[in-house]
């Protein structure tokens, strides 16, 4: 019973579990919500999301939340408010805002989040002019993701400092390479962050954001932050790939009215609980790429070896449209020549040995 074995003294540490930080990116693109007006108006969706946020906060005393709106012309914080510059104090508690309307029927942290989210959302909507909407049907997903990641980074550093975990700040002083610094050695002891994207816009409009979105996705992948996607309408190739790359949950809701139940069931469990649960994932992921020239979705394409731009057909004039390099369009897919052509080295220092014949020296003993 009291055997002292290697496994036992780890158990104490195992109870020391870190809270989780959930960052919700809400796509507030008015064009897309307009289509959904019938089944699930934005106001109702926000109400559902707020209950979901409360449920997340209820799960653990130290759980944290952040909400970013991805609007048509900008990405903005809904919570914590950027105007209240120190929105979180040392505990991650909500700082005392002065507008206290006494309401004894609601747990205070819940109410503060709700107040801020609705107020900021209202401001955002009021600041949107018809000009912003005209001719701009996409959503600033890349910006929202980048903001979310910056916040996660900040909270992770702060949390590690408070709890004496691996302190990322020390690493640069010693000169650790970034890969090591940002991939934690110990998953359970750092702040468990994840991102939920409530998406309504289609992806085809945001093709111009392809590179920044992909950059954010790779950052998530490196930091082991799952991206969950709750798709209310349309279907987005990027987001499918995002979930696949970061091992998040992708759900395309057949019935948007049931949003709350979907949120509670599939998106509430944090990383630790997910290990025990079978969560809905997509088995078939669309990995096809969009070509840079006509925005066509292709399954066989031509790639510039210099800048990796994808084309659906050899570009006119054999010149890459992105970087302008002249491409040997003729020999794409050709096998390498048996004797590679000798080319002049641009900066050759020691010309003497340049033309030396290859000597075939067998290794001793071989």
């Amino acid at each position, binding site marked *: *019973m*009291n055997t*002292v074995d290697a*496994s*036992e*003294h*780890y*158990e*104490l*540490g195992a*109870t*020391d*579990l*870190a809270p989780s930080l959930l960052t919700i990116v809400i796509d507030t693109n008015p064009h897309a919500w307009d289509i959904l007006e019938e089944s699930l108006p934005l106001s109702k969706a926000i109400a559902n999301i707020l*209950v979901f946020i*409360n*449920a997340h906060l*209820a*799960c*653990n*005393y*130290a759980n944290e939340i952040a909400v970013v709106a991805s609007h048509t012309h900008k990405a903005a914080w809904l919570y914590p408010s950027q105007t209240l510059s120190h929105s979180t104090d*040392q*505990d991650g508690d909500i700082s*005392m805002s002065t507008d*206290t309307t*006494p*309401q*004894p*029927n*609601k*747990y*205070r*942290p*819940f*109410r503060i989040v709700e107040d801020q989210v609705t107020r900021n959302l209202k401001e955002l909507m009021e600041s949107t002019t018809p000009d912003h909407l005209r001719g701009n049907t996409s959503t600033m997903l890349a910006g929202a993701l980048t903001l979310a990641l910056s916040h996660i980074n900040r909270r992770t550093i702060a949390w590690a*400092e*408070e*709890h*004496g*975990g*691996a302190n990322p700040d*020390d690493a640069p002083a010693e000169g650790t390479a970034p890969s090591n610094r940002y991939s*934690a*050695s*110990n998953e*359970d*002891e750092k702040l468990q962050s994840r991102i939920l994207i409530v998406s309504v816009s289609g992806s085809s409009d945001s093709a111009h954001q392809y590179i920044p979105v992909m950059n954010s996705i790779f950052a998530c992948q490196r930091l082991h932050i799952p991206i969950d996607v709750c798709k209310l309408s349309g279907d987005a190739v990027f987001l499918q790939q995002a979930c696949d790359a970061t091992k998040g949950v992708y759900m395309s809701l057949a019935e948007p009215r049931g949003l*709350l*139940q979907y949120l*509670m*069931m599939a998106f*509430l*469990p944090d990383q*630790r*609980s997910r*290990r*025990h*649960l*079978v969560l809905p994932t997509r088995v078939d992921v669309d990995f096809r790429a969009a070509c840079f020239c006509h925005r066509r979705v292709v399954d066989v394409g031509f790639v510039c070896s210099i800048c990796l731009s994808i084309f659906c057909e050899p570009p006119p004039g054999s010149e890459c449209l992105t970087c302008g390099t002249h491409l040997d369009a003729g020999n794409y897919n050709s096998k390498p020549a048996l004797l590679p052509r000798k080319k002049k080295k641009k900066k050759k220092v020691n010309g003497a040995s340049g033309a030396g014949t290859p000597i075939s020296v067998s290794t001793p003993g071989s």
Partner: protein
Amino acid sequence: MASATSRPLEYLEGLPGTTFYKLYQQPSTALAIFRRMLPDLAKCFVMALLYQKDPLPTADLEIWVSSDSKKERDNAISILGRLHVLSTTLTGENVRAYVLTNPFAASLRQALMGAEDSQSFGMFSRAPEHLQTSVADLDEYARQQWEGVMGYMVGTSAFSGQRETVNLSKGVKQLLQAGHLVELRGNRVDITKDGFGFVLQDVNTQVWHILILYVESAEAIGMDSVEVLSFLFLLSSLELGQSYDKSHLTPNQTRTLADLTDFGIVYQNDADPTRFYPTRLATTLTSDSSALSNPVTGSLTGPAGQTGGSGSGFIIIETNYRLYAYTSSPLQISLISLFTNLKYRFPNLVTGKITRQSVRRAIEMGITADQIISYLLSHAHPQLRKHSAAQPSNKGVPASILPPTVTDQIRLWQLERDRLRATAGFLFKDFTSLAEYQAPCQYAAEIGVLVWKSDRKRMFFVTRHEQVAMYLRNQKAGGR
């Protein structure tokens, strides 16, 4: 979840179902129980079921949980059952299904959505404040009171004359005696074995311990334990640094409030009798012990007024059993000296060495090796934590914070002495067939109550029998 949750959980489990029914009327109680008492997986179940109209068939739940985590699932469901949160019903098609019990589900929904006029989360005091009470003041007050209680138990006043003595009320002393944490021998206060275990725990666990003691004793002095309990849960959902109105409280609650003031859990200003302030001890009640970033414990260790900043740890322990504690608190020093041979004392540092003798001495006093280790762990210096976090974890097992040699050796020293351990529980025997024996035995193992079994004798021993008995009954019913 280790010792941290078990104590209040055990107490609550012992309550009759009707008490739960009354308790769950309050949204704050439902929220607090949900947050504090349930394991992660159970929380997922509750949330998934909360907004579902129809009961969830048991088979569906089983599919939802991955097959490797059967043990965790059964454990979660067992705890939910014991707390009267989850019950099973039969659906229309005669399928067994899980459903949340009603007052709990309704209250939790209310907590999340904020509806109706329950005043479950406290009334702010609206009167203008004459005396501003800052968070730092509250922390200081809580620290002073709590350290006073600890000091009373350990008897630190003996070797530190300079510190201000906190006047403990008679009620506090009686409560400590009633809980067998201290014994009164003539004029002297002697700490008991339980008391040693108590003082080595982290603050959050200690507060819960005291509160449970308080609730238990409340009945004796004529208060309704349900009322006291739900008041405690209400306290836990209040906001630090805010003052609350007392005029809405019942007389019993006011009385409880006065008692809790002595422990530093709430603060009342004598000059202003209409309001009270919850301190950090109260507002962090529903947090996990680790989530409490410990400004209170942090300041408990340091000299008065100097808050510990971030992180609470102050103990460094080396693989050669040397211990360095950066503290000047007489309480902490006397705690460390319980199991360490102290060598030097500097203004902000004491050093010593953990030896076989010192540990044995502690064990003879009734302190267990696990208590020592958990004390060291919860007060480990940030440097130690940083070091262990920097270590590459091998095969997913995190590197331990304390040197493994030291923890193992402390356990071995205990083993030298301690070869028997008594566990209270129930023996199941006389099974007619092996199959009949195996099924409940396996079930008991899955819900985590199995202590011992013998396949040959077809017996097994469990710490609690209700669910196993239920399981056996169900089996019998199913067999027929």
